[in-house]
């Protein structure tokens, strides 16, 4: 234990210089900004800023890039709460209850809970990283394609729980999401599915137009077809601080979200996507009032936000200890490290302790800084809701189009945005929820890829999934979840029958 504190002291010594603090601030500010703008994600920003870091010290460069990463995670949830626009796949879940809270005039409270929950989760994630990085990395190494398949399957079943309405509709939406996820070149065979001769479709449908269209623009459209006085909008602005009741409910949710996020974050490839979804599902399952979820439940904001941020911290573990990037952002960080002449990997802790612990310390500083930047800003963000909607809607529309276009510099993306906005409007009209659709869309291709790879490795023997202990455990949990979903239905039918 002493050793950890000594190491952290080394790290803080390195990170607490005026220059590094300044870089951390710039990174966090930039990150918050790009997180707030829909479509412009941290990947593009870090890639564009990479040349700037050539001239910085290695620690300074990494501190700034890491700041952008957390800042974006945080900024994404701001728009999710205020205008139902998820900037990142991780903030989709925040839309579900965060936007509903905003509609009830609790936008400030939702943002404060998100900020403080993220700070707590970030601190825990950092401590975990400091104390158990090598052990956790060993755990992540156990994950092969059968385990990933089992994890993705678990996520898909959990998606049904995400929905607050009809189970049948939720299943239908997951399946529809899977179908859309299949578009593009199949990784295993190289065959193009549903390409229709459009080269932009060969790599699959991009996430940004789907998420922005289904959530943000569809919401705007469904509001516009009501008379002005009946519009269901987040224009009431209540107290910026959470009430005592809200705080009481948020704290345990943050704790649980932190655990879920920390565990999933260390898995390379797909774990981080699941963390906020998984945390939400868990909250809804164990809650005493699951009917409140999707209608502005505090836990539905606190848990996924904490999970998301804890995962963002622990996803550095495989990178710093094994040299394995767990997300595309991490892959870019590897590039940044190599330019600085640092090889991320097992040797990093031993050879460059100043750097390793400096980054760890800067994560903590970055989290504190984000709260310092964002708490005063919450008042300002919430004021945005006072802007008349005849002005706000066109601005959102333009920002969404620009952001979507810039993810791939292609007009096809804007066309897709339009298509998915209309589709989202249809979903709203039919009373179908979009979150299960989106989870099916994101997880489907990953699940298929890992399923087929597992089958190739086992030479076609499906027993590979039950012979491996971790995969078998996750599959058993999945089965348990299916029972949980199905049993109440049976009970109801029986009640009707008798």
């Amino acid at each position, binding site marked *: 234990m002493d050793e950890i504190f000594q190491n952290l002291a080394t790290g803080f010594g390195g990170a607490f210089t005026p220059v590094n603090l300044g870089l951390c601030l710039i990174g966090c500010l930039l990150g918050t900004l790009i997180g707030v703008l829909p479509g412009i994600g941290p*990947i593009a920003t870090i890639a564009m800023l990479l040349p700037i870091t050539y001239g910085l010290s290695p620690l300074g460069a990494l501190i700034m890039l890491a700041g952008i990463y957390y800042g974006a995670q945080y900024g994404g949830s701001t728009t999710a709460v205020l205008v139902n626009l998820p900037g990142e796949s991780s903030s989709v879940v925040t839309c579900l209850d965060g936007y509903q809270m905003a509609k009830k005039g609790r936008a400030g409270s939702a943002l404060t809970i998100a900020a403080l929950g993220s700070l707590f989760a970030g601190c825990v994630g950092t401590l975990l990283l400091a104390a158990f990085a090598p052990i956790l990395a060993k755990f992540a190494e156990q994950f092969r394609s059968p385990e990933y398949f089992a994890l993705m399957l678990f996520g898909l079943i959990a998606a049904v729980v995400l929905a607050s309405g009809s189970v049948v509709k939720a299943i239908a939406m997951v399946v529809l999401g899977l179908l859309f996820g299949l578009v593009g070149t199949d990784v295993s065979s190289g065959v193009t599915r549903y390409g229709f001769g459009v*080269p932009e479709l060969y790599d699959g449908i991009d996430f940004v137009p789907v998420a922005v269209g289904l959530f943000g623009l569809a919401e705007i459209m469904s509001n516009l077809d009501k008379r002005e006085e009946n519009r269901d909008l987040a224009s009431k602005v209540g107290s910026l601080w959470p009430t005592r009741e809200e705080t009481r409910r948020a704290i345990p949710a943050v704790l649980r979200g932190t655990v879920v996020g920390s565990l999933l974050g260390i898995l390379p490839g797909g774990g981080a996507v699941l963390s906020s979804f998984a945390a939400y599902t868990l909250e809804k399952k164990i809650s005493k009032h699951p009917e409140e979820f999707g209608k502005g439940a505090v836990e539905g904001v606190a848990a996924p936000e904490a999970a998301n941020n804890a995962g963002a911290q622990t996803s550095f573990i495989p990178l710093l200890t094994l040299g394995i990037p767990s997300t595309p952002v991490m892959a870019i960080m590897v590039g940044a490290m190599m330019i600085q002449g640092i090889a991320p990997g097992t040797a990093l802790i031993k050879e460059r302790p100043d750097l390793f612990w400096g980054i760890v310390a800067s994560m903590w500083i970055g989290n504190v800084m984000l709260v310092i930047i964002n708490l005063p800003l919450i008042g300002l963000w919430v004021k945005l809701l006072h802007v008349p909607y005849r002005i706000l809607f066109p601005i959102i529309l333009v920002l969404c189009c620009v952001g979507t276009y810039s993810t791939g510099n292609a007009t096809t993306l804007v066309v897709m945005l339009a298509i998915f906005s209309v589709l989202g409007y249809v979903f709203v009209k039919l009373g179908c929820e979009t979150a299960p659709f989106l989870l099916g869309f994101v997880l489907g291709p990953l699940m298929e890829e890992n399923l087929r790879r597992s089958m190739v490795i086992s030479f076609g023997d499906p027993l590979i999934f039950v012979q491996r202990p971790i995969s078998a455990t996750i599959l058993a949990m999945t089965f348990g979840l299916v029972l949980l979903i199905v049993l109440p239905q049976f009970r109801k039918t029986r009640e009707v029958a008798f």
Partner: protein
Amino acid sequence: MQRRDDEAREPGPLAGRALRLVCYAVLVMAAASNLGSIVLAQGFPSRPLKLVVPMAQGGPADSGARLFASSLGDILGQNVIVENRSGASGVVGTEAVVKSAPDGYTLLFGSSSVFAVNPAVIPNLRFDVRRDLKLIGLLMQTDLVFASRPGVGANTLAELIKTAKAHPGKLSFASSGNGGITHLLAELLGLEAGISLLQIPFRGAGPAIIGMLSSDADLTASGIPGLAQHIKSGKAVGVGIASPARSPLMPDVPTFAEQGYPGVEAQNWYGVAVAAATPADIFETLDAATSKVLASAGFKATLEKIGMELMAMGAKEAAPYIVREIDKWSRVAKAANIRLDP
């Protein structure tokens, strides 16, 4: 102005004095770059140029493209804006340049996939890189290294071939994707050595490396920077380098040629091209500016930092080189029956 290194080196909060210094630096650099600009074609370039990069942001190739764009911009006295148009293994971006106005303002930063592999594995492309594009030159390259997991009995090429022959079809190879360059390299090795490897495609070279490290596959291949640290730490074994000479980044790993298979050769290389109908005087301006970039010591040094090597092959040699490469990969694709849809 493109962001320059000096401006970027400015750390943290901007104190007034530092800001003034930066302004001076930018002014001086702007003046210097004007002096250095060459005027061959009248008035070209009179507006910013666009460098289309048909890959996603972030990888070493993207960094290389951005480095080239800013160096080229300095010499031409105009901004060169990088535009990432990824999709369909580079076909989307390539097609955008093929269809662009042939005025020299739209350039393509293509990889060996774009110039040599795609034409070999995609039979119904809507363009022909040999006919529709004009290469200004090949700029940079990374050597590919073939690696195995320790304990699978493939520490050298001879061992690999022996193991593969003893258990046909059991030794698995994690490729960066169907019809990608590492897939073709593994097939080329299979053809030359008479062995058959079990292909396990991944979404890109990074995931393929992780796949091999986590025991989803026994072998993989990638550019040296991706595997260097794993080979150094003993998590992977360097089997061979698919280049004529050993790499300075990995001097201990022998080439395939040294191990008796000189034909097994593949590199990731990157070149720049314009639409074929670009006027000759504009092409010469771009050609001269590119040669200047390639000759500068700073460019070479920064390239090496991102794990790339300078290639510097001019337009005259580049055209026949890509024809040879297309022929080589067409042969492999035909023998191994690899074809992609788009």
